[in-house]
């Protein structure tokens, strides 16, 4: 199987969907002539022309709202946010319009839109550019949100998102764009709402998503090599819809759960996961559920300190050791 980058995997998904469906159009800041701020859309303008690959002015509320309106008429826009942090200037459009129109119309109107872009810290760009709002989106019924962590998942989930008839918000990571992994040449789609066991194990379940997946995998390796502990790493991939079954099956097997995410602790995604585990697998737990989140403050700039604020593999190891 060929190894390609996470960036290339997303680009391949976009290209395949553009070719499959004439209603798919890519819109965003710098996506066309500039080839994408993070080069995800590099070369697509040349291949598909300006009708399918459209440069938008710096006007998130305007162009995201426009995409939502176009999707009501059956266009399938894939909107790029240069950073998910910029979503907040388009929040009314993304929440009130994309999230509520189907409901308020009694099901008469669908909004088949995809909004995608990176959502991660760790790049020393300060608080305004480091948000991870998947928990906020997941709090909005009507919206779906996925956080792929590998090239394989990024491609398969992106294709599913584009074909979905509901709004799907895809959160990528600038730190993952350059990472590589095996992606089959033949076509595949990964259903939204399906978690993936990134590493099998028997002693403890580590639940993670998005940028925290590599953190969890590093911790699992340390646990195995240095402490002889077999950790199972469950990558949620999709936050809403949520694959509770895979989480619960794993916890029932290992009897311990440690949850890692880049959200802040208060009302983070893992708050919901912890609730689910205690609610549906309480009798299987041999220890309290542990959480590792980003330290509860706006993202710090200082390059020396930012890695301390974000979830660290060493902290995950400590938390696991504390409940064994």
């Amino acid at each position, binding site marked *: 199987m060929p190894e390609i980058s996470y960036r290339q995997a997303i680009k391949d998904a976009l290209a395949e969907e553009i070719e499959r469906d004439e*209603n798919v*159009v890519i819109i965003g800041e710098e996506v066309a002539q500039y080839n994408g701020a993070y080069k995800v859309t590099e070369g697509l303008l040349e291949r598909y022309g300006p*009708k399918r690959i459209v440069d*938008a*002015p710096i*006007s998130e*509320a*305007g*162009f*995201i*709202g*426009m*995409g*939502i*309106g*176009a*999707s*009501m*008429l*059956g*266009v399938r826009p894939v909107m790029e946010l240069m950073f998910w942090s910029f979503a907040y200037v388009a929040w*009314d*459009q993304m929440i*009130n*319009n994309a999230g509520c*129109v*189907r*409901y*308020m*119309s*009694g*099901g*008469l*109107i*669908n909004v088949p839109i995809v909004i995608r872009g990176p959502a991660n810290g760790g790049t020393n760009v300060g608080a305004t550019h480091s948000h991870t709002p998947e928990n906020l989106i997941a709090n909005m*019924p*009507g919206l*779906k949100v996925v956080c792929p962590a590998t090239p394989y998942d990024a491609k398969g989930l992106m294709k*599913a998102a584009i*074909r*979905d*008839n*509901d709004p799907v918000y895809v959160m990528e990571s600038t730190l993952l764009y350059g990472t590589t992994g095996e992606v089959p040449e033949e076509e595949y*789609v990964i*259903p*939204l*709402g*399906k*978690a993936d066991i990134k590493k099998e194990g028997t002693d403890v379940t580590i639940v993670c998503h998005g940028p925290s997946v590599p953190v969890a995998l590093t911790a699992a390796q340390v646990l195995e090599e240095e402490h002889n502990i077999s950790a199972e790493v469950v990558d949620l991939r*999709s936050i*809403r*819809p*949520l*694959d*509770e*079954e895979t989480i619960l099956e794993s916890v029932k097997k290992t009897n311990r759960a440690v949850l890692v995410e880049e959200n802040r602790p208060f009302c983070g995604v893992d708050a*919901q996961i912890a609730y689910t585990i205690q*609610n549906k697998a309480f009798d299987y737990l041999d220890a309290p559920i542990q959480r590792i989140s980003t330290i509860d403050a706006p993202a710090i700039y200082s390059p020396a300190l930012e890695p301390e604020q974000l979830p660290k593999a060493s902290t995950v190891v400590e938390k696991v050791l504390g409940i064994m």
Partner: protein
Amino acid sequence: MSAKTTPKKRVKPESSNLAKEAKLPINKDLSKDELLGFYRDMVRIRRFEERSLRVYQQGKIGGFLHLYIGQESIAVGCASLMGDHDHMITAYRNHGHGLAVGMNMNECMAELLGKATGCSKGKGGSMHYFAPDKNYWGGHGIVGGQIPLGVGLAYGVKYKGNIGSAMAFMGDGAINQGAVHEAYNIAALWDLPAIFIIENNGYSMGTSQERSSSHPKEGLAARAEGYNMAWENINGESIFAIRDGVGRAIKRAHEESKPTILEIHTYRYQGHSVADANAKKYRTKEEIDDYRKNHDPLNVYRLYLLDSKIMSEDEMKVIDSEAKQEAEVAAQFADESPFPPVESITEDVYWEADNPDKRTSEGRLFFND
């Protein structure tokens, strides 16, 4: 740097002259049926709104109720110009537009009462009517938030290679929202067939135009100059003037795929919403009476039809009483309709959840336990 003074009062257009405006090219070939149809639709909207006000006062309608009384000529005039690929979207003062495009009073009234038979099954309420089968895309609650959606409709029309337009309505209070200006820019930049229609009733809730907006002396639409966009001021008391101005904008959209901003001068007699207890504090009784007496679009049109002998007194009475009856029947229909069942709360959230046999995703969509 020269300091420009902001106009202190909104510039009211000269009084209309329907006999003259009836001869404009877009109006001169209208049949008697069509002319009476406009009258019927305007009366229907007014009677519907009056009836809904009574239902509200009986305590049967929750939340807000923004009435369209005084502005009927705009929705009816614009709807009369719509073809297969012309679309409409508006804000929360949206009953008139819905009725004008052909929604029926029963579904509209039932929606106000939150009934299962409402146009949105009781899920939208007064501010959120939708009829996509009639190219009517709502009914939106956040001031100005619908304008980017309207530009998206125009984008969709163009993307699909159709000759059409999207009329995006807003009040004079919406013109200072950032999203509106972003939408203006995109429509002009990309040559989209969008028509921005400012229904200027003089007040953004309780704040008059002179207290809310800085603008060129020609008015609110003239801000279009900053976006290199066409614009026009229209006297809203004349349905013929509305058809003339909006018709030009539609032609521009259809033939050149270019946007337009229109400012249509109008007035509302009721408060911003029925709950607006201070409706008479921010304006004078004399002002309200003046509009009612001299500039009411329905009265002005009725007089024109009677004076020009297009409509007889008898025909008028029939139309009036039928509209009243229709509103009465709607109120009764709404009253007698069932409320939606509790299970319906989680319906119409996700397309997938409502179409389980076609679902492609897995996992949990709702989190109620």
